[in-house]
């Protein structure tokens, strides 16, 4: 009996759902439906569940709950489409109108029925084509970077009716954020919708699991979702006491809060962040902030440059795809088939959080910059500068005294080195004795990082980047398979189908600075002047306490510990 160790995924907030959408899309585009294929290295059952709908059709859906505001779903019915329970309106008069049918059935039983309907929501062309078996979506050009209005536009995955949870108290608006404070998120958690219904949905997922590893919580870390998500983590700890891997995310677009100008918006984000980080230091097993901006405390900074990528700094659709690529890679460690038990969510979190260092940083290279005709051994030998780019705002890549967990993917073993007879120069390198990709990286890191410890996992499958992944972010120096080429340029109509990547989570003393700057900014905010926090129940003393705790938490990163 193979034991699948299940993980439950939670997504709180619109930008988190942008990322999540890409992530589930990436996973599903790597599914193989061909029974002849060798089983995938990835055990998809970790995050997916099998079910049956009322028509006795088998479904395979993410073990996911997501939360967003009313108005963010556009064409997507709240219960999803797999299990019925929503109507498709008649497009012409010939076929019977399903609405009329329901109305007539009801009228048979009682009095008049009045239909009050909102105009049918627009469907993105991509969604229309998904329903059209004649169209090959890979052949189309949807221009998603310019016309996506919300994540449901490019959602390829299909969800279980449990998955989508809509907050009716606040309305979705791309121009202003209405769900504003940590405290209003805390208040919202105390409503029946969350305290009973949402928790019960979590329980239903947990009940289905034989060997649940824990939860992974992706949430918007700048608005009211901070309060909602961290309250949820507290519930998870009380009820299940399993590992919680939290990923607070920052949108690259500084959408103003309702009734707030830009400085006020910045202040609210800083306060929410400080309160969230404090709570995370208590409730999460590990938390790794993510964002493509280099700074997010006060005023959003510049876009992080990733080699061979060209993305628009504030494009939600594109930036979320990069973050999703990171997530898909870093989480491989606990999603592999037949993995040793150290490859678990608890192991992953535990390895990185000694001395109470629950905050860690993210680093990523997509593509992993490797020439298409080069061996890994030479590639690493010639590498200059850091291997990857930080994706944790206000945090630099650590080099010394670090603990890190890496995952490299998409580099085949054949690309490691030359066989003996052709090895030539390579034989002179110490790395030549390495027989696997992970071993070679281990060795490299031992040399590159002083007094550090690295866990390296390697997976042969690259990140699939087919539509609806944003292909336009790849420069033309990348080949179809995502390697670099200095000579040939990829033609415009040729798509990159997959990219090799390297993702890391690092625990380093750099994070002390991250916390210190957050603390400094948060302390400068005059909380009494932000009435909306008080109005939602935050006491000044509580805020002060949270900041003090944050400072204590920072101390965990002070001394270089002994390994």
């Amino acid at each position: 009996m193979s034991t699948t160790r299940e993980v439950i995924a939670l997504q709180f907030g619109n930008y988190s759902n942008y990322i999540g959408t890409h992530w589930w899309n990436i996973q599903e585009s790597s599914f193989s439906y061909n029974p002849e294929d060798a089983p995938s290295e990835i055990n998809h059952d970790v995050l997916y569940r099998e079910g049956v709908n009322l028509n006795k059709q088998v479904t395979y859906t993410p073990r996911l709950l997501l939360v967003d505001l009313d108005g963010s779903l556009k064409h997507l019915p709240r219960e999803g489409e797999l299990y019925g329970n929503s109507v498709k309106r008649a497009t012409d008069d010939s076929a019977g109108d399903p609405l009329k049918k329901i109305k007539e059935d009801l009228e048979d039983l009682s009095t008049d029925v009045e239909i009050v309907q909102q105009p049918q929501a627009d469907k993105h062309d991509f969604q229309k084509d998904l329903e059209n078996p004649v169209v090959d979506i890979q052949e189309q050009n949807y221009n998603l970077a310019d016309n996506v209005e919300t994540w449901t536009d490019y959602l390829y995955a299909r969800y279980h009716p449990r998955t989508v949870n809509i907050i009716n108290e606040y309305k979705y608006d791309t121009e202003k954020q209405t769900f504003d404070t940590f405290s209003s998120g805390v208040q919202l958690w105390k409503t029946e919708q969350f305290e009973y219904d949402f928790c019960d949905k979590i329980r239903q997922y947990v009940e289905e699991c034989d060997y649940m590893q824990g939860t992974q919580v992706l949430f918007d870390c700048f608005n009211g979702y901070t309060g909602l998500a961290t309250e949820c983590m507290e519930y998870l700890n009380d009820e299940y006491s399993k590992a919680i891997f939290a990923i607070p995310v920052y949108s690259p677009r500084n959408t103003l809060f309702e009734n707030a100008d830009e400085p006020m918006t910045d202040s609210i984000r800083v306060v929410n962040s400080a309160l969230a980080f404090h709570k995370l230091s208590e409730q999460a097993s590990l938390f790794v902030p993510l964002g493509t901006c280099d700074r997010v405390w006060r005023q959003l900074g510049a876009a992080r440059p990733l080699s061979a990528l060209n993305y628009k700094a504030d494009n939600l659709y594109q930036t979320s795809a990069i973050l999703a690529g990171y997530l898909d890679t870093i989480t491989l460690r606990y999603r592999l088939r037949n993995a040793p038990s150290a490859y678990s969510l608890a192991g992953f979190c535990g390895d990185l959080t000694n001395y109470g260092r629950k905050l860690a940083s993210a680093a990523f290279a997509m593509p992993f910059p490797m020439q298409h005709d080069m061996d890994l051994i030479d590639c690493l030998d010639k590498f200059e500068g850091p291997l990857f780019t930080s994706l944790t705002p206000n945090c630099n890549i650590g080099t010394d005294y670090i603990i890190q967990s890496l995952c490299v993917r998409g580099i085949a073993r054949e690309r490691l080195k030359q066989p003996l007879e052709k090895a030539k120069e390579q034989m002179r390198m110490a790395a030549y004795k390495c027989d696997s990709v992970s071993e070679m990286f281990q060795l490299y890191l031992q040399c590159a990082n002083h007094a550090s410890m690295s866990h390296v996992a390697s997976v042969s499958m690259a990140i699939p980047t087919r539509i609806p992944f944003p292909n336009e972010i790849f420069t033309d120096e990348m080949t179809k398979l995502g390697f670099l080429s200095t000579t040939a340029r990829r033609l415009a109509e040729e798509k990159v189908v997959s990219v090799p990547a390297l993702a890391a989570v690092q625990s380093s003393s750099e994070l002390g600075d991250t916390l210190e700057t957050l603390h400094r900014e948060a302390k400068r905010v005059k909380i009494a002047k932000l009435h909306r926090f008080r109005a939602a129940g935050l006491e000044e003393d509580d805020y002060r306490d949270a900041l003090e705790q944050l400072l204590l938490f920072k101390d965990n990163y002070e001394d270089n510990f002994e390994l």
Partner: protein
Amino acid sequence: MASISLLNPKAEFARAAQALAINISAAKGLQDVMRTNLGPKGTMKMLVSGAGDIKITKDGNVLLHEMQIQHPTASMIARASTAQDDSTGDGTTSTVLLIGELLKQADIFLTEGLHPRIVTEGFEKARNKALAILDDVKIPIEINKKNLMGIANTSLRTKVHPGLADVLTEVCVDAILAIRKDEKPVDLHMVELMEMQHKTATDTSLIRGIVMDHGTRHPDMPKRLENAYVLTCNVSLEYEKSEVNSGFFYKTAEEREKFVRAEREFIDQRVQKIIALKRKLCDGTEKTFVVINQKGIDPMSLDALAKEGIMALRRAKRRNMERLALACGGTAMNSFDDLDESNLGYAGVVYEHVLGENKYTFVEECKNPQSVTILIKGPNKHTIVQIKDAIRDGLRAINNALLDKCVIPGAGAFEVRAYNELMKYKDTVKGKVRLGIQAFAEALLVVPKNLAINSGYDAQDTIVKLTEEDRLNPEPIGLDLSTGEPMKPVDMSVYDNYLVKKQILNSCSVIASNLLLVDEVMRAGMTSLKG
């Protein structure tokens, strides 16, 4: 609004008059949307969202939640009305209608130059009088099935079709009677509502016991047991791979193994305690054993329990722990240290039912169930949701009656009686204030009028008939919706809750007065109008 004090008095007056006009039109607008819902003959509304989500309802509160109300006045009325629902579960439609009508009636006098202050003074007097009349017409009830059926059926027939309402009435009343102690209202949390998308709405039924939305997770576990001991507990039977550190920090593989084994043994011991108790109590008898755990049970533990013929469920709802103890007896255990027979509950039968990907477990034939489950059935989600809303209202109507120990004759009877009495009362009051009382009296008729209109009868004819008949009768007179003729609500068992009516009178007069005194409200900084 800070600048308002800088306006000259004339402009201020104009501004106030304008604001008042806006208030009145907003109230009317909301009234127009809601009026068709009132009463059992009100129109059912089928709301369809842009994405095709369906919601079917006749409930004022549900509609108010679904409507996107932008206008501040309208949303203030809506809030007053949903507050009404939060506290009593009923009367939202009447609240909206009555506020609108109070403003309309007041408007007639205001355009003739009457000051809003005078009107609101009249409202207050009228409200007090109306509350006294309410006390006069209330009918004390004995708490028995027949009386509760009347109030529940009246409520449910305003929400779902009559055939279904009759089924639900019995279900709701039986549920409350089953768990009621003394004459007091019950804790409605002890009535679990469980949904099953299956069959038809009229298959909804009361289970005198507990239904859970999960089942066994082991192929060899019994799916049905009779004569069962029930152990409810909150004890982990799951080997938690609780290792904090993994790869780096174990010196040797053996060290790791040892740790794992110790952990596993710890869990096994717990399982063995259950098995030992089961053997002691059940082996050689007809008795069987069921474990319902709030914590997890892993496959190895399930396997051990299955081998003993024990049925075990994991991850039960926290609230079901308490409910199970009330339904089956016994106590929910937090440890197995002193586990013995006295901790266990009993159920005549425990069985599993599978429906698509969902499993249900029924715990029935409990000796003296103090917690019950209403099993809601329906062919689709929107029917189930509609029934669930209706049942909540029905349960609350019954509970309100337990609290009040009395009911009010419905079908417009109270409003007609109050109208007649207020018109008499008005003549005893001196000065223009009486006009406010008259406006209030007229406004109350909005209820019988709309009950008539929604059944296809002429509003004026009906009011004439009803008010005349009421004057001739000591008992209050309401409208028979199937004939359009006056009738005695008591004869037809049409009852409303006392506290619902009371709250409607109170909140409507306050809100309407606030809206009328809009100029003063504005001066006060609009605080009561803002969110």
